[in-house]
């Protein structure tokens, strides 16, 4: 900060006000030596403040880096696997880095793509005729699909920002974009444990079949994404996803996804 001991009283206050607002000074103001010194000091202090805020803002906006010595995160515990209401889970200050988890968003995308392949492709189309796909006795999915979910589940959940179930209440196109804005009235939060009554997210307009008001949906949005990685409709399909999510949640609790 400036070395000058700024004066007291109105002159110093006026000097600070002038420095803050960047307004032109009255004619002759700088001829007063005391005011001129106060003004210079105020300008210097404001410059330091600006510089520090830029640096602090840049530092805070960066995602956390994995620490040198990992420590496990405390888990709130889910004895029955269901998410609970109440306070957020306490978070340890240090993240727990898992050797097999590559702490980049790219890893999350790769996992996501393999998940999409296992679930029958990324084009969002699945036949409404259940008999056309290989269904097992669990009525949910093929063995390869279940294997993919079980294998990648904890990573997927660790990297997810929001995991919810609810009802689609609104789908409106955003003019000038190729996106719809979808609003879901949330019935159940998986991650975080609680949140707002509704969530809204953009989704590509060409998702097929189109979402409609009243659709039950399960939504997973990862940390760095605006649109969902997973948006599941259909009672049977939602039940399948719910099962691997509930299984993955406690495992994901000990992991930290550090990608953006």
């Amino acid at each position: 900060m400036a070395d000058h001991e700024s004066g007291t009283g109105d002159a110093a206050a006026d000097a600070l006000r002038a420095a803050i607002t960047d307004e032109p000074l009255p004619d002759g103001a700088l001829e007063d030596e005391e005011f001129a010194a106060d003004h210079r000091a105020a300008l210097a202090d404001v410059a330091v403040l600006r510089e520090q805020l830029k640096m602090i803002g840049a530092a805070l906006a960066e995602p956390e880096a994995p620490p040198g010595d990992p420590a496990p995160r405390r888990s709130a515990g889910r004895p029955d696997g269901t998410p609970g209401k109440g306070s957020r889970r306490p978070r340890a200050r240090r993240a727990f880095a898992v050797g097999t988890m590559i702490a980049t968003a790219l890893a999350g995308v790769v996992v996501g793509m393999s998940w999409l392949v296992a679930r029958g492709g990324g084009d969002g189309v699945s036949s409404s005729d259940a008999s056309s796909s290989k269904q097992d006795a669990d009525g949910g999915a093929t063995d390869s699909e279940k294997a993919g979910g079980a294998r990648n589940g904890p990573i997927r959940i660790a990297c997810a920002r929001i995991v919810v179930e609810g009802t689609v209440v609104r789908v409106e196109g955003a003019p000038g974009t190729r996106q719809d804005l979808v609003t879901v009235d949330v019935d159940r939060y998986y991650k975080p444990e609680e949140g707002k009554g509704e969530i809204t997210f953009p989704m590509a307009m060409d998702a097929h079949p189109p979402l409609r008001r009243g659709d039950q949906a399960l939504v997973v949005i990862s940390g760095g994404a605006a649109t969902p990685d997973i948006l599941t409709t259909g009672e049977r399909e939602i039940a399948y996803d719910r099962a691997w999510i509930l299984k993955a949640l406690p495992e994901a609790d000990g992991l930290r996804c550090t990608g953006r």
Partner: protein
Amino acid sequence: MPTRRSPRAEADPLAEDPLDAVQADRVRAVLALGGVPQDDLQDGLQQVRLRLLERRARREEPPRDIGAWAAVVASNLAVDWHRTKHRQERVSERLSLLSAPDAQVQGGPEERVLALAVAEGLDALPAAQRQLLVLRYYVDLSVPQIAEQLGIPLGTVKSRLYAAANLMRERLRVEEVA
């Protein structure tokens, strides 16, 4: 009803993020400076994106300066965070975690002490003053721009900024003496 898998926006070249990378970074910084916890920064950024898309959906004219508009929305979100008593994160605590020699805060020990002092000053400010300080000295909006964007009188902006800057100066002067 069939399952749907929606491709991520990043995979769709025609899907667009209403904010570019620089604007998004600035939004995250404004949220963080406003005390929004690290874990919630992405949520806050998402809310800003949605507000912009909702504007388009309502066929409102786009903001003249999207970056400045987004920063103001982010600053309002940070104030709301305080009001609705969401979990707040003290900027100084977060910064102290980053202040290890190999961490993101650049500069020598004196720089880190100064940064921490500024961060503690921010934490001590009332939310409304903090918001104006961030908009003026991080986002670099002029006083009339702040008044216009927030819809508050020019005199109110000046008096709050003065109070905030004065408090910060006093705090930093105490740090110097110490």
